[in-house]
């Protein structure tokens, strides 16, 4: 009997997981369909781009600067052994632009914006504000979820470019402090090994990150229950799930990028 109960519980858990994944996938697909239908809610989209993009900029710029400095120090420690200090700017720029910048920006935005979306929509759900939107003949899904998804898909690549730029700047600050390298020489070396195929796919993949963060956190907000406790849970789960999805999707996206732009060796 005990074995049957365990199997039942595991079975229910597996079914519940797939139901959850199916519900989020349906939510995300509906958002894509609704995004191309009028009304386009441009004012809301612009407001959210400001909230997600402009107001995340200080966090992204600070984090980028710090990561650039730290990466530069680590890279110097490694490359010094081989007398290859001249490669520090290029190594740092490649690491930042191809992977560290997009991934870190995605995770930071998942923390700041994902939590915010989950909590804000969740609070609106439990205080009947979503019902009030519907009662006022406004499509709450479109007004709240679709606008946030589009806004974050636009803001994410812009924030990633900021992260890349501030990271390279941080690398320069660290390098200049140690070796006194000039700004001009640093940037010349940094971009000497960078091609458009390094910058564009890596930056554009963050559009997918933006979509995932906003879809997951909007879904969790819309399905919030149990009052303020539920709002807190929606916020926390938004961050955790969005971060996991970013990391997992990154693996797939890098594989796709490598398929279209094979890495050059030697």
């Amino acid at each position: 009997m005990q074995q049957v109960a365990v199997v039942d519980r595991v079975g229910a858990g597996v079914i519940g997981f797939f139901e959850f994944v199916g519900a989020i996938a349906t939510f995300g697909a509906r958002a894509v369909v609704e995004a191309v239908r009028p009304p386009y809610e441009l004012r809301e989209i612009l407001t959210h781009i400001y909230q997600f993009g402009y107001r995340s900029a200080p966090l992204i710029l600070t984090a980028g600067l710090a990561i650039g400095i730290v990466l530069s120090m680590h890279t110097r420690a490694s490359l010094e052994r081989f007398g290859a200090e001249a490669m520090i700017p290029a190594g740092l720029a490649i690491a930042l632009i191809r992977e560290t910048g997009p991934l870190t920006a995605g995770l930071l935005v998942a923390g700041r914006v994902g939590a915010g979306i989950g909590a804000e929509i969740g609070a609106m759900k439990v205080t009947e504000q979503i019902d009030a939107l519907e009662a006022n003949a406004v499509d709450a899904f479109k007004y709240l979820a679709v606008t946030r998804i589009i806004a974050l898909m636009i803001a994410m690549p812009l924030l990633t470019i900021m992260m890349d730029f501030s990271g390279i700047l941080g690398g320069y600050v660290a390098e200049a402090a140690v070796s006194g390298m000039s700004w001009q020489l640093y940037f010349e070396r940094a971009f000497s090994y960078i091609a458009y195929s390094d910058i564009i796919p890596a930056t554009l993949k963050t559009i997918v990150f933006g979509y995932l963060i906003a879809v997951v956190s909007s879904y969790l907000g819309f399905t919030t229950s149990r009052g303020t406790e539920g709002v807190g849970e929606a916020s926390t789960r938004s961050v955790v799930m969005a971060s996991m999805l970013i990391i997992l999707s990154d693996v797939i996206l890098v594989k796709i990028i490598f398929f279209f732009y094979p890495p050059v060796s030697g």
Partner: protein
Amino acid sequence: MNAVRFEHVSKAFGTLKVLDDISFEIPAGQAFCLLGRSGTGKSVALRHIVGLVRPDRGNVFVEDRDITTLAGRELADVRKHMGFLFQNAALFDSMSVGDNVAFPMRRHTDWSDADIRERAKSKLADVGLDHEFDKMPGDLSGGMKKRAGLARAMALDPAILLVDEPSAGLDPMTAGEIDELLVKTKRGGTTLVVVTHNIPSARVIGDGFAVLHEGRILVSGTLEALDASEEPLVQAFMRAQGGG
């Protein structure tokens, strides 16, 4: 013409049966009060009228359109004829009080910004809140929130006003003020559907009444019919609320 008509509406959430084959009609221009103890399905019935909840069985007609079959733009068009005052007002907390009232106008009219602002101020003045235009909902008391919610619900001068527990959580003076506002609204030709468990308040507002219990209508009709009902639960309810 009937403003609202329920035809054999049933609704359950999981195994919990909330509405069980209820039917009633509300003539246009009248105030109809749905009475009953807490948790008897009154608010669920109200939400059916605006299409926030769909019945498992039966139909809900609003101005002779079956709202249970509508979706998208058609549903939105019917909703534009209604105002909804939620139990906790449900003001949008990211907007000022004035913007809350202006919201339906901005969404559904092509009036100029100046015109909308003027009309929103006028709606707030009707509920005595014209000085609170720029305040945020969080800065208002419970009674003020309810009045602001009423101003928003009345923003487009709806033909039907749905009101969920207008006096819940309010002191008797404020509750009385809300009742007066609702009576004034009714006199302007608006159909009122009021969910309440407050009999003194219903006596002031209502023309027609129905008492819900465990998802079924125990008795409906005029206040005299309710007072004369021999149904023990109705008698107990009316007595407990100071009726009769």
